[in-house]
């Protein structure tokens, strides 16, 4: 049994099995759950700086991303960003001494665990875009990649 499992006989049945399993894995990974490695500190402590996850490509097919959703965004080639949505089209977004203000109202963000001193002038979120930012706001604002991004760059959401 053990030998059959790890050293199967090389025949056409094994070949067919490899093709079927390989094809199924490819379809699942390409269309539904894309494997991705996390490498970066911008979403700490929600996601560790190094990790593994799957991008659930079906997550925003029917309902668009909204406030607080964590999204995976296409950047270029195989590089993606993992960020949180804090603004939708038409909103104004602003940071005052590390505090987020949306449409002039102070927003409580339970997921922010580190201290933050960011200041950013009020920005109006353009049509067909969302405003995204990472959870690690202890990073200097200049080093943190965030801002308005086209909605069609949202590839999905992390599976966990």
């Amino acid at each position, binding site marked *: 049994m053990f030998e059959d499992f790890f050293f199967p006989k090389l025949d056409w049945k094994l070949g067919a099995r490899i093709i079927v399993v390989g094809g199924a894995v490819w379809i699942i990974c390409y269309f539904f759950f894309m494997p991705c490695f996390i490498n970066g500190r911008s979403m700490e402590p929600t996601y560790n700086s190094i990790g593994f996850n799957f991008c659930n490509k079906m997550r925003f097919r029917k309902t668009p991303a909204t406030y607080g959703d964590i999204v995976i965004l296409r950047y*270029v080639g195989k590089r993606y*960003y993992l960020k949180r949505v804090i603004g939708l089209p038409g909103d104004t977004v602003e940071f005052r001494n590390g505090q987020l203000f949306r449409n002039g109202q102070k927003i409580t963000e339970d997921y922010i665990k580190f201290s933050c001193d960011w200041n950013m002038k009020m*920005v109006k979120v353009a049509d067909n875009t969302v405003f995204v930012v990472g959870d690690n706001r202890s990073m200097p604002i200049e080093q943190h*990649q*965030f*801002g*308005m*991004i*086209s909605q069609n*760059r949202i590839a999905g959401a992390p599976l966990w």
Partner: protein
Amino acid sequence: MVKKLIIAVILIVAAAAVYFVFFSESEEQKIRKMLNGLCMDCAKNKESSSAAALIVKTNVLKSYFTDPCTLSVYRGFLQGTFNDVRIANEIMRVNLFFRESDLSYSDLIVTVNVPEATASFTGRFQAVLKSGERVDEVREVDLKLRKVEKKWKITSAEVHKILQR
């Protein structure tokens, strides 16, 4: 006789199908081809840096743009309305700063409404400065195109950061 006629008709239909499937180009394919050409002609490598090649390239590059063409590439640089020759010269001038450069695009979305079209894509510029420093910039590009004498040309180009603050 009828049998031969039917066979002839089937052959003609099959040939037409093969032509449309394999040889005819859709407008989207033509735009893609034009962009591939533009990327290739904007790139700089050892073969393309001779004086003769630069002159040829300048002439080729201007054929990708209408006269006038509206550009918004970078604050203070290539922002406004320019003629095709000026744009080609500016591209060549920028290339002088680099030892080698490469332009590529991905995620192309084309909307065609002949004789006009729009194309949005992610553009990537990778280069090595004469000092040896590497440049790798990624931007979102929105183009407006018009078909002029069976060729798609850029009437306006807007380049902006993927994440805008």
